[in-house]
């Protein structure tokens, strides 16, 4: 719901809530005022009549045509010299309820007690109420209409700085490393928002830069000592050494190999997270897939693995070539590595997805967890457990989804491409190769 509509609804809600209360109050006061005015008028009439009686005039001269009733009575004057009485009755001629106000006053004139009463018809309460209701309904209708019409226009004007800010944030990119500026606004809240966003983006840019610097420095700082160790081991291996010493050197070489690989992969993951692999051109994913398969040919033969592939031609995908190679390479080398002797691999590629299936021992941990860093199906295995983490990361930044399932003795990794990154040419052909 739009902010303007929210405000309007609140306002209308309050209006609807307050209206009955104001009607009640208004009704009460109007009603009271009418009664009071009428009572005062009748009282004055009574007083006038009384003074005429006192002066010996015939009251008829004054009461003529007026509903005044003069009665002489014996006995003491009542405590209240003035009594008002309202009575309602059904008026047959008008066919409605009518209301009559009677004012009765008592006087002591010339040692006689008189009772003078006069009455008049007054506007009935119901009528005041219905009149007020009609006015209020008109008022509500007009206010609602006016608000509905003006809300859109006013909000567009008032909210303009907000939308401007939103647009700036949307187009903000850490990679471009440019500051964003906001136009000045007179609304305090928006000014606060802009200040906050400005601070936040500045901080983000700063953090991003230092993170990038760190990853570059880490690369240099770690790679160089690794290069030293590796070269020294190479030199050591070339000195005349005995078999047991050679064994030690070989173990060290293995460890250094693994260490440098972990370092490289972690740096790669950092770079992926920093989105340093933006690419605007399309690559032929089918070519990448076929090329990768041919690179692993020897390894496939070594395990006597049967490969069947169903790779559509002309699959163009917007992806950095390094990432494409890494994605396919990791999936296929995993499929080889975790395969059985004389096992099978099926590679399927079309414009929608890439599926790599392989035979192998059933997974010991839930397949989803294998995408986590340093999670391995077999913790003691030689791998470093970052291959699938990298696959996942590549998919995440490219907007692909990736799933790992184990079904009917097959390990299945399925990468579903992001439609916006795929561009297919017609005339897709199938090539089946054993």
């Amino acid at each position, binding site marked *: 719901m739009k902010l303007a509509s929210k405000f309007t609804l609140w306002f209308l809600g309050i209006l609807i809530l307050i209206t009955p209360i104001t009607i009640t109050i208004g009704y009460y006061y109007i009603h009271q005022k009418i009664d009071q005015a009428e009572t005062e008028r009748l009282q004055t009439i009574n007083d006038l009549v009384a003074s005429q009686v006192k002066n010996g005039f015939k009251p008829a001269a004054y009461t003529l045509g007026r509903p005044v009733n003069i009665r002489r009575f014996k006995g003491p004057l009542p405590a209240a010299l003035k009594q008002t009485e309202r009575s309602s009755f059904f008026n047959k001629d008008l066919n409605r309820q009518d209301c009559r106000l009677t004012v009765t006053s008592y006087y002591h004139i010339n040692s006689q007690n008189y009772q003078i009463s006069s009455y008049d018809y007054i506007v009935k309460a119901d009528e005041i109420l219905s009149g007020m209701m009609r006015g209020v309904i008109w008022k509500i209708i007009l206010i609602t209409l006016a608000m509905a019409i003006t809300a859109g226009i006013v909000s567009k004007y008032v909210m303009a700085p907000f939308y401007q800010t939103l647009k700036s944030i949307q187009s903000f990119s850490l990679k471009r490393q440019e500051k964003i500026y906001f136009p000045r606004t007179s609304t305090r809240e928006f000014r606060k928002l802009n200040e906050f966003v400005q601070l936040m983006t500045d901080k983000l840019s700063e953090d991003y830069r230092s993170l990038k610097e760190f990853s570059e420095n880490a690369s240099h700082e770690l790679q160089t000592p690794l*290069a030293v160790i590796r070269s020294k081991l190479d030199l050591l*291996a070339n000195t005349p050494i005995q078999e047991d010493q050679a064994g030690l050197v*070989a173990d060290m070489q293995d460890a250094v190999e693994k260490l440098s690989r972990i370092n490289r992969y972690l740096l790669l993951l950092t770079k992926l997270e920093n989105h340093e692999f933006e690419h605007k051109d399309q690559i032929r994913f089918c070519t990448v897939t076929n090329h990768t398969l041919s*690179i692993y040919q020897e*390894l496939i033969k070594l395990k006597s693995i049967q490969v069947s592939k169903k790779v559509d031609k002309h699959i163009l995908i917007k992806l950095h070539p390094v990432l494409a190679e890494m994605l396919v390479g990791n999936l296929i080398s995993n499929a080889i590595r975790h395969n059985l002797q004389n096992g099978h691999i099926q590679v399927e590629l079309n414009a929608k997805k890439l599926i790599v299936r392989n035979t192998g021992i059933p997974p010991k941990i839930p397949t989803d967890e294998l995408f986590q860093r340093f999670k391995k199906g077999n913790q003691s295995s030689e791998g470093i457990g970052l291959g699938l983490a990298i696959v996942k990361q590549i998919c995440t930044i490219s907007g692909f989804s990736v799933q790992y399932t184990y079904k009917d003795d097959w390990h299945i990794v399925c990468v579903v491409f992001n439609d916006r990154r795929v561009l297919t040419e017609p005339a897709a052909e199938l090539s089946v190769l054993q």
Partner: protein
Amino acid sequence: MKILLVEDNRELADSIYSLSAQEGYICEVADSLSDACQKLLLFSYDCILLDIMLPDGNGMELLTQVKLQHMNCGILIISAKNALDDKIKALDDGADDYLTKPFHLSELNARLRAIYRRKQLGGNTLIIHQEISINTVSFEAKVHSTLLDITRKEFELLLYLVVNKNRVISRQAIAIHLWGDYIDNQPNFDFVYQHIKNLRKKISAAGGKDYIDTVYGLGYKFNGDKYEISQ
């Protein structure tokens, strides 16, 4: 071969110096950009081994300078930066090759030799050891002038072994040389053994001697002196 090594890390420079000594190259070490510039003014080199990140500047400056002055020396960049962009930029700027740290000395040696062959030996593309001759342009290997029927990978393996004659080459170094990063998450290097086995078989089938020694658990060595000593 005369080499100028520009590297600020002493230990790594020492290792490369030792390699040069073993291989019979003349190697001079410069630990900064200014030092390297001075040496380049006074002497000429066949090949420059250049680290990009130096204490007093970027190694790429030296590269530009060498190219501007049309010095006839090969340049091999050794860098900790392994981003594709860095590699492409260095090669575009005129470097002959780009090697990422950490590297195997045998790999460095092989690349140095390759640059030297291209730059200094001109048309000489034939590498000969006794009865084995390797043509690096046509990718052909002959034993006693019999053409060996070997795969591309086996050819590269043989070349790598012969170029690193008498050096112990670890299985990892061979694997990385032949497959690069693709080999990353393979659990063992048995496939290297398979390749070596096939290569040995093919050479002996063509009447060649077996020069390839297995060195304990370490790796392999193309033993060039093997039969000279025993004879």
